[in-house]
């Protein structure tokens, strides 16, 4: 298939359209504006609907409504806007409504900076809203991967009846790369997906007290509420099979760099430079940051490994919490950090690697 040159945000939107997404609602915020703008142009061409909501809060709830009526639906935003969406995301998780949303994250906290950052890691992976729900969180490090993961995200969402988050950053969202786009779902396939949700979707049912659709993001009865949470916990536990990770030159490594998203891409180029210079450096790059590939850290040869280097665009470090749980104290963990909209420098990574090797 021919490759086309696309900006990350637009590629994400096109991948969603090809996956059968037929409803998108969003609200302007930098650096993700190209996603709603693309949908605004594209949706009419495929018989879908684009709505510019009056806020992030309204947009996510429009998506909650559309998805509850059985349509593959998506929203997107960037860091402060994602915080506003947390209300609707929590409702979708509680009511088990499949939606996909993308965070093209920027500096923070607060209004932060409009430039790229990775400062929403803990929010994305641990607590994207009230109540302790979990989601599959996918972290692309190239535009191609953003396309592939967005396409797959809709299948995960429908399979689990649960929200799925694409955790990208302003670099992935705004840079252009050649991509191969996945096949366009046919109208028949899209209709079949919608039909498969008819049993629970809120579209109107024949009068039947027992079998009407009743979408409940909460329960009056505490026993039922607990049972729902137990069911959700069992779902979350089942995601171990869905772990995706890139392990690059790990076996003999004296330094393991670990990073996700754009930081991992920069780190990987640092690994290649190190290897060319005869330095034994490897990379562990989680693609699913939730579920997290803790087991990959068991593959490190701790007899030779002098340290794990956590590389992330967040100060204080956040990703490092999961890294610690993977390393389990078997070697020291160092960090190489930047924040506030500054992009990770490869030189800083190389310097940090040398620092560990010199120890």
């Amino acid at each position, binding site marked *: 298939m021919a490759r086309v040159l696309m900006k990350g945000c637009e590629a994400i939107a096109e991948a969603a359209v090809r996956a059968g997404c037929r409803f998108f609602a969003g609200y302007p915020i930098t650096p993700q504006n190209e996603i709603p703008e693309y949908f605004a142009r594209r949706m009419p061409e495929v018989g879908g609907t684009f709505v510019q909501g009056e806020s992030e809060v*309204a947009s996510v709830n*429009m998506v909650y*409504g559309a998805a*509850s009526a059985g349509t593959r639906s998506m929203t997107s935003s960037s860091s402060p806007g994602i915080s506003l969406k947390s209300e609707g995301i929590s409702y979708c998780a509680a009511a088990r409504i499949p939606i996909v949303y993308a965070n093209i994250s920027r500096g923070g906290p607060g209004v932060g900076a409009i430039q790229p950052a990775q400062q929403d890691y803990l929010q994305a992976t641990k607590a994207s809203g009230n109540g302790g729900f979990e989601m599959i969180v996918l972290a692309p490090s190239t535009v191609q991967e953003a396309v592939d993961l967005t396409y797959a995200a809709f299948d995960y969402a429908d399979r689990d009846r649960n929200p799925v988050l694409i955790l990208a950053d302003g670099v992935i969202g705004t840079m252009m790369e050649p991509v191969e786009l996945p096949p366009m779902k046919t109208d028949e396939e899209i209709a079949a997906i919608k039909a498969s949700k008819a049993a629970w979707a809120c579209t109107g049912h024949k009068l*039947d007290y027992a079998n009407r659709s*009743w979408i*409940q993001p909460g329960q009056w009865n505490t026993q039922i509420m607990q049972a729902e949470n137990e069911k959700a916990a069992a779902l979350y536990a089942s995601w171990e099979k869905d772990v995706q990770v890139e392990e690059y030159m790990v076996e003999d490594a004296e330094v393991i760099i670990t990073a996700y998203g754009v930081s991992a891409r920069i780190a990987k180029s640092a690994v290649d430079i190190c290897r060319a210079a005869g330095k034994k450096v490897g990379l562990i790059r989680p693609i699913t940051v939730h579920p997290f590939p803790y087991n990959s850290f068991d593959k490190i040869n701790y007899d030779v490994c002098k340290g794990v280097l956590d590389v992330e665009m967040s100060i204080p470090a956040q990703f490092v919490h999961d890294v610690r749980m993977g390393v389990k104290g078997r070697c020291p963990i160092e960090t190489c950090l930047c924040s506030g909209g500054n992009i990770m420098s490869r030189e800083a990574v190389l310097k940090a690697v040398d620092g560990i090797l010199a120890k």
Partner: protein
Amino acid sequence: MEKIYSRTTTIQEDKVSGFCPGCMHSTVIKLIGEVLDEMNLVDKAVCITGIGCCGLHMDYIAYDTITAPHGRATAVATGMKRTSPDSLIFTYQGDGDFASIGLGESISTANRGENITVIFINNGIYGMTGGQMAPTTLLGMKASTAPKGRIAEEHGYPMHMCEILNQLTAPRYLERTSCNTPQNVIKTKNAIKKAFQNQLDGKGFSMVEIVTSCPTNWGLDPLDALDFIEQKMLPEFPLGVIRDR
């Protein structure tokens, strides 16, 4: 003998609503059900309930329902109606939901002229949470968060949602009714019917604001609450068609 008035089939046989004695949420839910029955719309109906007492009918009605986050019912309705245009989509919201926390969604949805129906229950108080001040609380009316009563200088004035939405171009039908007398109950039912018909005809945004009682949080017995509606609420919130075009 022929039965000439009985319970709507849209209220489940063995269930009784959780509303307090005299609460007119019960009345309005009954009327919505009667209209759905009479217009043969039960199998197309989806009720989007707000948060608060307005959600207390979910388990005894017989048609599809979904709970929206507090104030967001019209946004949820937007997503649903746009993707499921053959369904009858209506929101059921109280004054805290529609006129306070959801004000942005409410006005924006009306301004887009979404082809949905809003049933807006105005009883001038927060019911479920225990009688706090609402945007519609009358001047001088006591609330648990306005123990000396609503004071204009501190709290502003009661909000008139029909009149506010009447400033917009897109809405097609705005009517304020009550359920304090049998005659007004009939008018409310007719208003709901008209609002649903507008949606079937693709006309766009319709809202019926219904002035109701909250005997429990007004601290009145149900019959005194009827008098309170007549003497206090209706002078502030006059009934009638605000717009029909």
